[in-house]
């Protein structure tokens, strides 16, 4: 009965239109749209990756081997299982060409050498257009190469020119426009070159012990059960160190990255929803304050508290549903409408459509947020008594609502966190985000109180400065809008400040600090007989300050104490792929043992391994454990005899696994060297080494750092966009607060005009008020952002932290500016109104 009455009352009140609810609606729409948009893009990419799995992988399934080709037994299994198969070799090398002056120029390239069957799925696009086979067969007696335009440009090469890989010349037949299976290639330091594997026979690049990866792509019979085939492969080729991927998840790295980034951005989006919640709450409070008389009249006429609560709850519900629908329309419609633009910028395929999951996710978050932020104002309205007709009772209602509403608030908050955990799939990230948002809201609320108290304290001390005095009175006095302004602006700015500080610190750590400690070059694949000459060149160079060198092999840890490694140590990153392995007779100079003893220099007993202490502890290893490492297809089982403190932060040489010399010396291998030199000496070292040893790959650390910084910049800008939406919502809330406050400002301005204030003085007061509030919100946001960034840098990134003052000052000024824009936009009305009319309408 009461519900029906409440519904009738609610419908009658909504007849008046949406006036007073525009900010409410705007906040819901923006919050929903942001989350739905991120979710839709994420889902579209996932769908694209899933639909195009086989193309991205380059076949139905792939077997990857490190550092070696498949054995005859392995080839036999592949040929038996697949209708057709293809072998691809992937490695880094130096490409050499002659420039116009006849001087040699060199550049790092990621070489993919292929057989005649490549690609099993999709097409390689070349410019000029031609079949890949024709391009790779070359011309004028030389094999052909197709080269990424970046490398062509770097080496000043044109189609028809000659380039060299190792000791083999190739004719550049075409520019490589796109390769179907590029997404799986991962983080590449050099642009791509594709050649035929046969053509590398005399290049000296695939000698035993050099670093390369082979991938065997399998075209399986239609209807093959991929999971069963995977199990079969792993059983048949047990302990071969193979890694299996298949079309069920064609680009696992990319899919995981998109999922993680998407989840993270949705969590950033939740901070936008929280800001929206502040606006929703403020808008509802303002609306209900204007309804006090109506509520009191209804109470006089006999309406129960339940009827009052339901009347306004139903209105809020109807508007929230409208806002959510419009938000979904915007959040899903926009990515679909912009699909061609987004697709052009994405390195992965995407299928844009309206997906139910992100819509449900956005709607659920919004419903919970709206409920959390409207419950208290509704509870206050429910408490209005008939006596309110005679005095301002809404403002006298208790600040904390009845216990049942507190319980509901906690329940709804827990539901929101649970939902976010379910959708993002990461409990800790969700809890950290929730903690961050709640912490920031708490800090900002405290700050708003502090700002009000400080303004009230300073006001009497600013006598003789009327404009500043009025501004402080407006901030510190009754009816102050300090709380919603500081909360809405502050939360958006906090996220932005934190992102800015983390980005600057991380980039600073990489770009500024790392080059001071990092080597200038990594030289990879130096053959044993080249080491003497190589070291002689370095030692004779005054610009070289340090050379580190070690035998270099790669291996995969397959078993720990006879058990599959993943069963013992879970998904630790050390187990995710192959790791560098070296051997040494004596203990490395710069590393100290944390546990156990080093073997004697002439030790020849059972294989022993010294393991990195930090990673060993994370994996639960202890002295005496038996590690089985697959190296070149052979298992080497070694006993852990010591743990070492290894510092990976300086980008120098550091091995997780060091074995005794006798355990590995017989295996074919090359050497890795790091060279520390003055910047002036770098060019000569690069030229001399790559010229004298064409098989050796030189990786300039500065280039790698630049590339990694670019990747970081992309991540930071994606996050900054998320934060910008939060800020936009904050701006909307500010506009709402300014609009709600316009009547009192006009009134105040009219009185001041009556007392003799000029428009300039009134404007100065309004400007100071908005600027002070904005700057205060910015400063608090900065404190919150810097604390958050410090915590992330210190505990997650494990880098040093210092405040980046440029972005920091930008945040404070940005806050003041945004607040000014919102405030002054609404100051023009009060400025121009005739005082008599404003005062009369207030009577």
């Amino acid at each position, binding site marked *: 009965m009461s519900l029906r009455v409440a519904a009738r009352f609610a419908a009658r009140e909504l007849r008046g239109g949406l006036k007073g609810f525009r900010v409410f609606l705007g906040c819901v729409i923006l919050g929903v749209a942001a989350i739905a948009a991120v979710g839709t893009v994420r889902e579209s990419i996932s769908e694209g990756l899933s639909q195009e799995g086989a193309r991205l992988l380059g076949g139905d399934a792939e077997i990857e081997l490190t550092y070696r080709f498949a054995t005859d037994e392995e080839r036999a299994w592949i040929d038996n299982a697949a209708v057709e198969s293809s072998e691809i070799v992937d490695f880094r090398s130096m490409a050499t060409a002659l420039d116009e002056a006849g001087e040699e120029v060199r550049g790092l390239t990621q070489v993919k050498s292929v057989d005649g069957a490549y690609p099993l799925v999709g097409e390689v696009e070349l410019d000029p257009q031609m079949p890949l086979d024709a391009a790779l067969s070359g011309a004028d007696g030389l094999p052909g190469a197709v080269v990424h335009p970046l490398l062509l440009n770097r080496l000043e090469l044109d189609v028809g020119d000659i380039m060299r890989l190792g000791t083999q010349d190739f004719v550049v037949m075409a520019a490589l426009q796109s390769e179907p299976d590029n997404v799986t290639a991962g983080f590449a330091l050099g642009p791509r070159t594709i050649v035929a594997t046969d053509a590398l026979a005399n290049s000296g690049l695939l000698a035993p012990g050099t670093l390369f990866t082979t991938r065997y792509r399998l075209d399986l019979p239609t209807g093959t059960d991929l999971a069963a085939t995977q199990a079969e492969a792993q059983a048949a080729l047990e302990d071969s160190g193979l890694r299996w991927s298949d079309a069920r998840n064609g680009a696992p790295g990319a899919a995981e990255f998109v999922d993680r980034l998407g989840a993270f951005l949705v969590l950033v989006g939740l901070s936008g929803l929280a800001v929206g919640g502040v606006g929703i709450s403020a808008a509802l409070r303002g609306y209900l304050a204007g309804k006090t008389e109506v509520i009191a009249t209804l109470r006089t006429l006999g309406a129960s508290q339940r009827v009052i609560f339901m009347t306004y709850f139903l209105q809020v519900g109807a508007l929230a549903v409208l806002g959510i629908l419009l938000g979904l329309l915007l959040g899903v419609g926009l990515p679909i409408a912009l699909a061609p633009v987004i697709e052009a910028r994405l390195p992965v395929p995407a299928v844009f459509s309206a997906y139910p999951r992100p819509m449900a996710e956005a709607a659920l978050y919004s419903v919970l947020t709206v409920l959390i932020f409207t419950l208290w104002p509704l509870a206050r309205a429910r408490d209005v008594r008939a006596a309110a007709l005679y005095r301002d009772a809404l403002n006298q209602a208790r600040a904390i609502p009845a216990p049942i509403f507190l319980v509901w608030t906690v329940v709804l908050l827990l539901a929101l966190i649970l939902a976010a955990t379910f959708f993002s799939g990461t409990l800790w990230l969700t809890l950290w985000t929730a903690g961050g948002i709640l912490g920031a809201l708490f800090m900002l609320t405290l700050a708003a109180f502090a700002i009000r108290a400080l303004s009230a304290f300073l006001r009497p001390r600013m006598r003789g400065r009327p404009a500043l005095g009025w501004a402080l009175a407006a901030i510190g*006095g009754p009816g102050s809008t300090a709380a919603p302004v500081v909360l809405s602006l502050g939360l958006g700015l906090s996220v932005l400040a934190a992102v800015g500080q983390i980005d600057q610190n991380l980039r600073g750590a990489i770009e500024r600090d790392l080059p001071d400690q990092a080597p200038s070059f990594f030289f990879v694949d130096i053959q044993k007989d080249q080491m003497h000459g190589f070291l002689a060149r370095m030692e004779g160079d005054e610009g070289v300050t340090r050379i580190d060198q070690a035998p270099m092999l790669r291996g995969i840890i397959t078993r720990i104490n006879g058990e599959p490694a993943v069963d013992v140590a879970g998904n630790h990153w050390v187990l995710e792929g192959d790791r560098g392995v070296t051997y040494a007779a004596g203990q490395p100079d710069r590393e100290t043992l944390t546990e156990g003893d080093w073997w004697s220099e002439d030790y020849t007993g059972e294989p022993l391994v010294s393991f990195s202490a930090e990673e060993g502890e994370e994996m639960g290893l202890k002295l005496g454990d038996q590690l089985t490492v697959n190296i070149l297809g052979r298992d080497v089982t070694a006993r852990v005899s010591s743990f070492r403190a290894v510092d990976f932060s300086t980008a120098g040489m550091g091995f997780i696994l060091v074995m005794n010399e006798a355990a590995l010396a017989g295996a074919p291998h090359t050497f890795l060297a790091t060279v520390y030199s003055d910047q002036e000496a770098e060019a000569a070292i690069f030229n001399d080494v790559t010229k004298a040893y064409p098989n050796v790959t030189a990786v300039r650390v500065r280039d790698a750092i630049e590339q990694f910084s670019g990747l970081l910049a992309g991540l930071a800008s994606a996050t900054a966009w998320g934060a910008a939406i939060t800020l936009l919502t904050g701006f909307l809330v500010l506009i709402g607060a300014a609009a709600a406050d316009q009547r009192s400002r006009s009134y105040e301005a009219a009185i*001041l005009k009556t007392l*003799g204030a000029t428009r300039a003085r009134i404007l100065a007061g309004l400007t100071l008020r908005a600027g002070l509030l904005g700057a205060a919100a910015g400063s608090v946001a900065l404190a919150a952002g810097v604390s958050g960034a410090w915590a992330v840098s210190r505990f997650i990134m494990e880098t040093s932290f210092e405040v980046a003052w440029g972005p920091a000052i930008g945040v404070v000024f940005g806050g003041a500016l945004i607040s000014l824009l919102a405030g002054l936009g609404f100051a023009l009305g009060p400025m121009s109104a*005739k005082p008599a009319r404003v*005062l*009369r309408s207030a009577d």
Partner: protein
Amino acid sequence: MSNPVLSLQAASLSLDGNAGPVSILDAISLDVHGQETVGLVGPSGSGKSSLLMLMGGLEQATSGKVMALGHDLTTMSEDALARLRRDHFGVVFQSFHLIPTMTAIENVAAPLELAGVADAYDRAEAELRAVGLSERVDHYPSQMSGGEQQRVALARAAAPRPDILLADEPTGNLDSVNGAAIIDLLFGLRERHSATLVMVTHAPDLAARCDRVITLTDGRIATTEAAA
């Protein structure tokens, strides 16, 4: 007789209504002399408050001339009018119109601060003492009764030692006891500052305390009577 401090010559005021312009005041001509007290009476909607607003430059005449202390208010800018009010006028309203974000003393000091008076707060405190509110200086308007708020408004109007006091139904929102006290204070302040007083009122006994009573009907001056 001295020059009038306020002089209206065929001053009219019309406002835009839904059905076209509505005439509020129609060709009012009137002189008010220094230290004179004038009561404006008449039925609701007769234009009393609007006439008072024209005199204070708070409303702009549609036609005619409004002179105050030798200044033509109809040709002055909004800011010039504000400065004139700051230096020479005190205005009291029926609804008090105190700034809600300011305490009593801050409200009273506001016009003095605008004029750059060095001891603005000492003078404001003295004015509050004069209206019997020395215990309420740091209270906000919302913490005071209607009578107290109107006393603050009186103190604020008197603080700049104005030449002209304009009062728009100053007792309209008060009970008779408070109303009588306010009127006593108002006339006392006028006396103290030797100011000219123009007061809109519905109460014939209040009007009778003025030197002259002007009755308005439908935006025109119906009668002008000197006090008995």
